[in-house]
């Protein structure tokens, strides 16, 4: 079961920090990040990719679910 990080409604740079924190705590697990803005989507994707994750984006209504998997 992927760890879930819900950063909806939080403004920059908190979503990025929470994603980094989750990555640090669960270095090998899949992480699901829930965001609700393009800015957060881009920032979280950038930080996850820089940490060696591949990111799969799913649009759900006004939100995005970012599935971050280790390796690519």
């Amino acid at each position, binding site marked *: 079961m992927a760890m879930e990080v819900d950063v909806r*409604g*939080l*403004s*920059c*740079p908190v979503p990025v920090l929470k994603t980094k924190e989750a990555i640090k705590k669960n270095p090998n697990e899949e992480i699901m990040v829930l965001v609700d803005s*393009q800015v957060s989507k881009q920032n979280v994707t*950038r930080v996850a990719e820089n940490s060696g994750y591949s990111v799969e984006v799913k649009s759900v209504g*006004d939100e995005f679910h970012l599935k971050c998997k280790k390796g690519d």
Partner: protein
Amino acid sequence: MKKENLFIWFSGAVVGLLAVILVLFGNPLNMGFCIACFERDIAGALGLHRAAVVQYIRPEILGIVLGAFIAGYASKEFRPEGGSSTITRFFLGILVMVGALVFLGCPLRMMIRLGGGDLNALVALLGFIAGIAVGVYFLKSGFDLGRAREQKTFSGWVLPIVMIGLLLLVIVAPMFNAEAGGPIFFSAEGPGAQHAAIALALVAGLLVGYLAQRSRLCLAGGTRDWLLIKDSYLLKGFIAILAIVFLGNILVGVLGVTGTNTPAFNLGFEGQPIAHAEHLWNFLGMALVGLGSVLLGGCPLRQLVLAGNGNTDSAVAVLGMIIGAAISHNFMLAASPKGVPDFAKYAVIGGLIICLAVGFLNKEKA
């Protein structure tokens, strides 16, 4: 180079270029753009303060909000949201303005001043970085102002509509209270009387608002993200502004171009346009702006852009800045080229203390 990196360099460069052009066409020296000064001028034009030399409805500000609004709709990113410690943001907006008016500029003007050789801006930059570093400490220890939630679409339109109203006011300049000289007050002399034509200023603002929305340009975000996660994306825009303003000023001199005001590169502390050389207060004033901006999630420019994109919390921060400007001038907290008044010093210290309290009191429990 990655496309996104190219775009932030480009956005910063356009902002820098427009800053030089606006001075040539009439804006005050080293003040092609200044979000804080221009919001202060708007507060004055509306009669919220009576500092007669800084009253004008600056179309740049209106343009930035409306440009971001257009970019938001064009990119389908427009999103009415709010409710993240709104009242706290209002007061942070006030404090950011108090700090900016002690230094005499927002972070954007700080870079523009630096590009003009004003070394006081370098002192201020150090303070700004120090303030951001304190903000980063709070972020690292779990600071946030809470979640925003989706709002009715109309809420996101309110500030853009107000900006259209202000545009009408600057064009019409109604005068039905002739005895008082208003209701709209425009400076007859001083910085408030120096401005580019309405159309040029508006188009420049629209461009900056559009580009800043697309690129996420933020003058505080660059240093913040670098200190926080070694991310240099936003820093590129920050550096591009400085580089282009510097080159632009040099080029204007080399080519012998003259304008309504002629920008120049003039290295030094003394005799800089609309500036003073009280180092401690330049440092602390911008430290307050840096810290306040990190707590708000972005610099004054970014607040305008977010507000245009539907963020009602940022819209309230913008209103806080406008009220902050009125308070600054009415309570004699604003510096001038003559120096920093005593009250301003207490206000900056008080502002820093309040920001520290906001930082400590808004940590998420682990």
